[in-house]
Structure formats: C-alpha cells, structure tokens
C-alpha cells in the first residue's frame, strides 16, 4: 500500500515535533550523569590522596616506634649506662684551700690567704696510683711559696699491703698524715709541736709499706717506713754551739748519709675507737748552723761578727735520733675526743765543730669536739703543751672555737687561742682567728 505523499509531508513534522522533548530529556540526564562522574572522580582523587597520606603515616610509624619489649630493654640499658664506669686510667683532682683573718695581742689584725693545696690522683686500675699534693702559700712579702707537700707512687701489692715510694707525710702519729688539711682540722691552727719544725716529724723521702688487716673481731692498720731521715740544726750564739732544732721535712737527698726507719701500728677494738703507737729510730747529723738565733732581717752587727767568727762544720758526729708517740681517737655520734703525744730525742755529740748536749722536743694535745644536734654548729676545745730545749719555743695553749658547717667540706671557723710562752714573744700572744676552709 502506498502512503500518500500528502500524509508523509504532514506526519514528518509531527513526528519530529514529538521527539524533540525526548531529546531534551536525554541531554539533561547526560549532564547529570557527567556531573556525577566528575564528582566520583573528585572523590576518588581524595581517597587516593588520603590513602597516600595513610601509607606515609604507617611508614613513619614503622620507622619511629618500637615494641614494648624493645622499650623495656632500652630503659634497662639507659639505667645501667655510665660513661665513666670502666676506664682503666683515672685522673682526679681534689685538695683544699683556706682563707682567714688573725688578730693577736701584739700584732695588728690581718687578712691571711692561708694556703691552696691541690691534690692530684692518677690511677691505673686497682694496681697503682700516683698522688701528689702541692702547697701554695702567700708569704708576708707577697711572694708565693710553692712546696711539694708529698708525691708518691702507691703500688697496691695485695689486699693488705700498699708499697708507697717517694716523699710522703710522716706516719708518726695522726695529725701530720691525716688531720692537718684545713677542712679536716677543726681549729684554724695546728697544735704547737705538730706543725713544721716541731716535735713531730712532718715528712719523709723513702719507702713505706702500709695497710690494714683484721685481728679477730678487731681491725688494725700499720705503716713501716725507711727514709732519709731528718737533719739537725745547730745554733751558734755567744761563741758556743747548742742544738737549735730538728729539720724533719723530707730532704731531696740524704745529705748526712744517715737513714731512719720507723712506723705506726694501731688497733680499733670497736668502730669508734682507734689507738696507735708510733716510733722511729736512726741517726741524724748537724748539717747547718743558725747564727745568733735570728733570721736574716733581724741580724745586727753582733750577729754579723758572730757569723764571721762561726766555725765551719767539720767531722760532725752522727747523733742518735729517736721518736716515740701514741695517739688515740674516740668517736661517738656527734662527739669526738682525740689526743696525741710525741717525743723526738736527739743524742749528744762529743766530736765535730757543733759538739753539744742532747735535746728533747716533746708535745701533746687533746681535743674535744661536738656537733650540736639538729644544727650546723660545732664546738671545739683543744689543749696543747709543747716543750723544747729552748725556753723561747716552749708553749702552752688553750684553743676554743666554734665552727659552722655550711656543708661537710665547707667550714667556717672562729677560734680564740690563749697562749702561754716566753714573755713578749709570739708564743705568748693570745689571738683571734677566723678561717674559711673548703675541701674539694
């Protein structure tokens, strides 16, 4: 059947007209779909970025975190760590220093620098130690004096013996070897007779064996030494010689060729009590002469004449030299009582230019101290009696002091000394002393 052309001409526009709205609807769906796809693409990018960040975070966590077990092991390592625990060679400096003020009856009050005494320790394992103490002091004229107080090499032979070689503090008694440092000495001054040129030997150059061992339930300690020994000083006055003093500071060389040996033995029946006995014996010779009994500044024409007329040393006889001492300390809580006695005896000489009679130097002190409970104040009292062959050097002394312990090793001291010696001499001057001492 043939469709008439007229109908076709009419129907075509109608069909087109009918499909046009449908076409419009299809375009709208497409746009919406396109927007949805674009949104999805955007979200996908965001998810991908988030995943990327998450991966980075996980990687960072894996790199920077540890397990609990690892943390505990690390903590234990940190707690046990110590850089200084195991070196074979150790170097250490300690020492003490003091400054003060002194005001005596017959001398103007003056600040004094005291001394600075660094102590050096060099130690290799538990086998050997070198220890040395220097002493710097400012003299009255402003010059600085330097001394090697001691220098020893200590070989720890075994648990009960140490061999000490070099210049060492005299093991006779307690004061010189253990109590003279200013932060330990409870008074600003040394007891007369126990300082330099006193009754007690100060130092020796030689060898020493020392240590400690148990005696049943008691403890003990000992020191035995052999050294160059002291030398003697003779005084030439009014045409005659007499013994002036014992130069008991260690000599760098044994000028008189006479050695001395001695030692100390102490027992500790219980923890707070130590009793020691000391002795030394040997020979000593006069090696120098003091003219007129004055030092250089006080020499006058009379001394100069005497010096010119003083005979020179020749054929000096080695004299007997003997030392005996006892010491003790009782310590209970805040109370300490200590005492020490020493006697140095020099025999007579019948030959040589300085042939003269014998002489004894003798000193003893006793000291009590008490740390007042729940305070930092400490009270101290000490009595000393020093006797020599010369009245001018004899001295009796009471010393009373109060200390303030800023810490165990930083101490402020104020003390008053009542001295009884030869009238109008320094040994008779009462004096106030203030001292700050620091042990480091």
């Amino acid at each position, binding site marked *: 059947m043939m469709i008439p052309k007229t109908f076709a001409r009419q129907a075509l526009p109608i069909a087109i007209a009918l499909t046009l709205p449908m076409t419009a609807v299809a375009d709208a769906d497409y746009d919406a779909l396109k927007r949805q796809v674009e949104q999805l693409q955007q979200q996908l990018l965001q998810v991908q970025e988030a995943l990327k960040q998450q991966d980075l975070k996980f990687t960072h966590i894996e790199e920077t975190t540890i397990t609990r077990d690892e943390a505990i092991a690390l903590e234990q390592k940190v707690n046990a760590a110590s850089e200084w625990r195991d070196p074979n060679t150790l170097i250490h400096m300690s020492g003490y220093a003091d400054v003060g003020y002194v005001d005596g009856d017959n001398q103007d009050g003056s600040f004094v620098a005291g001394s600075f005494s660094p102590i050096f320790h060099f130690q290799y394992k538990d086998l050997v130690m070198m220890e040395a103490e220097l002493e710097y002091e400012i003299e009255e004229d402003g010059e600085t004096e330097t001394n090697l107080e001691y220098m020893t090499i200590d070989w720890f032979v075994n648990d009960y013996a140490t061999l000490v070689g070099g210049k060492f503090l005299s093991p006779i008694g307690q004061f010189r070897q253990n109590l003279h440092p200013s932060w330990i000495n409870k008074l600003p001054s040394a007891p007369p007779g126990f300082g330099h040129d006193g009754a007690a030997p100060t130092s020796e150059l030689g060898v020493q064996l020392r240590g400690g061992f148990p005696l049943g339930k008691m403890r003990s300690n000992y020191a035995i030494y052999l050294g*160059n020994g002291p030398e003697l000083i003779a005084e030439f006055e009014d045409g005659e010689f007499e013994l002036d003093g014992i130069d008991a500071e260690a000599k760098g060389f044994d000028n008189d060729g006479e050695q001395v040996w001695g030692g100390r033995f102490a027992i500790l029946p219980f923890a707070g009590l130590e009793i020691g006995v000391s002795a030394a014996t040997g020979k000593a010779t006069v090696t120098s002469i003091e003219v007129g009994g004055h030092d250089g500044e006080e020499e006058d024409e009379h001394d100069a004449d005497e010096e010119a007329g003083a005979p020179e040393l020749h054929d000096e006889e080695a004299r007997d030299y003997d030392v005996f001492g006892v010491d003790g300390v009782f310590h209970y809580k805040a109370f300490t009582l200590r005492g020490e006695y020493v006697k140095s005896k020099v025999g007579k000489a019948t030959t040589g230019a300085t042939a003269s009679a014998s002489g004894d130097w003798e000193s003893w002190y006793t000291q009590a101290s008490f740390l007042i409970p729940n305070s930092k104040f400490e009270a101290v009292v000490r009595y000393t009696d020093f006797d020599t062959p010369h009245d001018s050097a004899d001295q009796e002394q009471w010393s009373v002091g109060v200390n303030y312990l800023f810490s165990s090793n930083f101490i402020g001291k104020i003390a008053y000394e009542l001295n009884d010696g030869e009238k109008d001499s320094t040994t008779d001057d009462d004096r106030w002393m203030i001292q700050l001492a620091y042990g480091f």
Partner: protein
Amino acid sequence: MKISTYSNAALSARTLLLFSLLLPLVGNASDRPESGDYSTGAKVWVENCGRCHNIRDARELRDDQWFTSVFHMRIRAGLTGQETRDTLAFLTASNMPHRESIFAKKGVSAEVAGKADGQAIYNQTCIACHGSNGKGTLPGAPDFTSSDGPLAKSDDVLIKNITYGFQGPGSPMAMPAKGGNTDLSDADIGALLAYIREQFGR
C-alpha cells in the same frame, strides 16, 4: 744564716731488709676489683670516715672520682682491699638515682609488703647509719624512736623518701635512694617501712 755541708748517701742494710720483707707480697695484685658488698661498704663508710673528718655526702662525687678518692683513703685509713671494694660498691650504688620505670605500676603503699622480710632488709641496708636501736649512729641520722621523728610522717611520704633518697635539715649527708641498695623493690620498701614502724614506732 745557714751553712750546709754534704756527705754521700749510703744504701743501708735496713733498705735491703725492707725490700726482702716485700718479696712474699709480690704478685698478688688483682686485675680488676671484684664487686664489693654495698651494705658492708656503708658500714665501712660510716665507721671510718667520721674518725678523722666530717662524713661527706655519698652522692658528692661521680663514680670515677669516688674510685680514686677511696683508694686514696685506703692508704690514709689503712683499709683492706675488700673494705675498699665494699665502700666503692656502696658509693656507686648511692650514685644510682631511683628511676621510675614508665611501665611501673603506680600507687604503691605499705600494704604491698607481701612476703618480703623487712627486718632482713633493715639489717642489711639500713643498720649501718640508723643503728640496731633506730636512734642513728652518725650525726644527722634521725631517731626513729622519737615521737616527733620521721615516723610521724605518713607512709606515702616515708616511702617516697626511702625510694628517692632524702636529706634531713641539719644532716651533713643525704640518705641515698633506697639506702644505696638499688635492688630493693616496692614490696621490699613496703616491708621495710612496716618493720621500722613495728620495731621503733611509738
């Protein structure tokens, strides 16, 4: 003025005698010190130092500084090698501060004593300074028997003082953390405090 003269030194027979006495002693030096016992060391520390000078704080120096200082004192005080090692054990333990583990359980009290032996701990760790009667053996050590003494404080305060160390007013030295015995556990400290309260408390 001094006029000096010189003569030659001679090696005396006494020198040879002294060295001959040394021969049997040679060869016994140990390589490294063996570990000492800290509680014996605390006793040696308290009993020996105070005879000559004020007792210094056990935490005053580093371990290496204590090492040389104690060997120096071995010579001065006539200590044996074992006493030296014991003292070093005490001092190095005193230098170990108590470090609270981040994994430690909190809230420890005297009740955690458990089966720990407070008396044994006291006799081992505390008795050197605090004494068998609790009255103290050295200046600054408090009197546990005093009604206004340390035991007047609460358990929490005392446990903290024992754990971390404490220095009382007027005392020249501080008690180190755990008395220098770093092995003490919380239970040990609780048992220790319970024993101290029972034995010395008023």
